[in-house]
């Protein structure tokens, strides 16, 4: 057994919520608004339907192949010749997507809070932290997350509650002015919120009650849909069409707060959400990557891989994108496609094949 620890369903839900929302809240709204404008919140709800389909696929796979991760059961489902490449693809994907996250992490801190600090400093710092957490195992990551979770929720609510008096909900009208197409396009972009449910396919074997993961995951998807919709309603009501110009609308929202004469800065809420949330996210994907590689190569221990993968992540995050414009362009163009194909499409195919083979037997 590569991973001896167990996490509860509850912890999986919290991990899922923070992993997805930490980056989506900050980078999502502007991209989503470009497509669906004031109906963006509708497109998130629509994307949540896709999220529900995806988690039912992943939990069904977990039920069929008990005690195995997607890396292990892909070759059982479709055979070694196809299964091994699929597993390899996941290993590479976990690293690649994490390179985005690491870069986003450093980019926001350099761009907004500490412009004169070299970016590499943040990258190295977060990779060291993540390497340490991943070496300690899944249980430790989940427990750190338990610690952050209530504070994260409070920070999120505080930011929106403190700025509510500046919101003009008329900005949300008219609904469906341009018909349904823009909402669908927006929903396509917003699938990134839910595609990351794939982490469940790596974690289900390590849950103490593996048979009962669907309901908690469903709750997570619904909560995530609500968080997404609320975020978009909040920023659209505050900024209207100005969102298009804003790099990080939720950050601007926090900076817009002036609740009283002395409570005029809410940036620390965002900095907390960003550093704590993205740390968990980076650790989760870092962990997924090393676990996947260890399982693919049938290693006895994944720990020797943690440091090398960490270094690869740091290097990739710096060399893949030369500036923030490229980063955001690639998030918009690549991530939804990759998400739908790798995180959504492949599990669906695996499930269909597994079901057909079972019937054939």
């Amino acid at each position, binding site marked *: 057994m590569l991973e001896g620890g167990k996490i509860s369903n509850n912890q999986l839900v919290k991990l899922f919520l923070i992993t997805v929302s930490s980056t989506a809240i900050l980078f999502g709204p502007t991209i989503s608004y470009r497509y669906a404008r004031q109906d963006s919140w509708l497109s998130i709800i629509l994307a949540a339907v896709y999220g529900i389909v995806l988690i039912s696929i992943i939990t069904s796979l977990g039920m069929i192949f008990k005690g195995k991760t997607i890396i292990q059961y892909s070759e059982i489902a479709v055979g070694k010749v196809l299964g091994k490449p699929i597993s390899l693809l996941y290993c590479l994907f976990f690293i690649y997507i994490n390179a985005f996250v690491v870069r986003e992490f450093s980019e926001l801190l350099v761009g907004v809070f500490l412009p004169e*600090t*070299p970016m590499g*400093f943040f990258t190295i710092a977060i990779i060291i932290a993540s390497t340490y957490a991943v070496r300690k195992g899944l249980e430790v990551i989940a427990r750190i997350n338990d610690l952050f979770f209530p504070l994260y929720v409070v920070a999120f609510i505080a930011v929106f509650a403190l700025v509510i008096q*500046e919101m003009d909900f008329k900005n949300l009208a008219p609904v469906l002015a*341009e018909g349904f197409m823009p909402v669908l396009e927006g929903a396509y972009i917003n699938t990134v919120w839910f595609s990351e449910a794939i982490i469940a396919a790596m974690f289900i074997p390590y849950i103490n009650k593996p048979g009962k993961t669907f309901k908690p995951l469903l709750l997570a998807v619904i909560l995530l849909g609500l968080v997404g919709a609320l975020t978009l309603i909040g920023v659209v009501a*505050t*900024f209207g069409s100005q969102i298009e110009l804003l790099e990080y609308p939720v950050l601007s929202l926090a900076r817009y707060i002036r609740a009283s004469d002395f409570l005029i800065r809410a940036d620390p809420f965002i900095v907390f959400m960003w550093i704590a949330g993205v740390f968990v996210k980076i650790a989760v994907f870092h962990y997924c990557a090393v676990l996947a590689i260890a399982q693919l190569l049938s290693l006895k221990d994944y720990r020797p891989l943690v440091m090398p993968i960490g270094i690869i992540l740091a290097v990739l995050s710096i060399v893949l994108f030369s500036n923030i414009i490229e980063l955001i362009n690639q998030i918009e163009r690549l991530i939804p496609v990759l998400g739908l194909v790798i995180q959504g499409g492949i599990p669906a195919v695996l499930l269909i094949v597994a079901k057909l083979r079972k019937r054939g037997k």
Partner: protein
Amino acid sequence: MYGNRILIITALLLLAIPTVGCWNSVDINEKAIVAGAGIDKALEEGKIDVYVQLIIPGRVQNAAGSGSQATLTPDAVWVASATGNTVFNAIRDCSLKSGRKLLWSHSKVLVIGEELAREGIDKVMDLFERDHEFRRKTWVLISRGSAKDIMEASPEYERIPVFEMDSIIRGYGATSKIAPQDLNKFLGKISSKTTCAFTAGIEEISSERLRRENKVSSFRLSGTAVFKNYKLVYWLDAYETRGLLFVTGKVESGIVEIKCPQEESKTIAFEIIRAGSKIKPEIRDGELVITVEIHEEGNVGEGQFAGIDLTVPENISLLEKRKADAIKKEVEGVIKKAQQFNTDIFGFGEAVYRKYPGEWKEMEKNWDEIFPRLEVQVKVDAKIRRTGLISNPARIK
């Protein structure tokens, strides 16, 4: 084992010493805190003058300690200035004079000179949105004159001029006669295709008292500057401004005066307790009609011993009608003026878009032709709820 633990804890505590603080930490006494900034058109063609009001922390403290001596201590601020092609360059040049690096995160007000505003503010606003130190909550004010005079004017009640502006702005609701906008709302309107931006004006004033204290001048907020295509087009006066706020539903409180129906030489004043509005666009036989519905509630605030019996319900309804007419006059005045200058400051276009998104696409292109000839109906519903501690004004019986 125990000794080991102590060693680890000591090592961790020692680690805390070098790890606190940021990469390029600057102590507060090496920074100059900016209270607000002013921008003017420079004498040299195409250049911009920037005035930055810096707080001198020591003097603010002295003033607080010396109590009644406050007015005799020197100003708690110092104005640095520089000229440049871009605002950013000019602001950086200000630190050539201040020595310290400017800290913008507490900046509350941005004043733009009238001359620059008339020429167009498109060249100066970008930085305030782009740079991470500025806040979208900064108030935008337009000087009726140069921004320099406003930045250098003295406060009369507070210690720091910009803080006085800030407290005047935040108390706007008492009169609802100024319509200040922050950067976020101002830029939101200025980048709109059909809605025109507006914000409060600020003017320099001088008085005998100030001269006695060897101060040049003070300032007051007055009127509203209206923009079209980045350019200042015209000013609204105090009552037109309130008319605008009535239409947009932003009136908080204020005093409405009417002549007493029974005794024309006396004026009755009402306090507005709450007010709201609805903008209802409607397309009737292919013609767009906008109905502005205003609901207002208030109390009798002052009666000037006028000869009217306020215990009679009929008299109250008569006064309610008169008050509604007075509000209607303010509102119609500003609508007429806005149509005359073809500036949709009320967001009528946006209201149409919300209700008729399909038809709006055609109208948006021709909004400049539609708006000046638009039929706008104003309906005011004014209520009188209470008459204060007395009912009838005191009279010789």
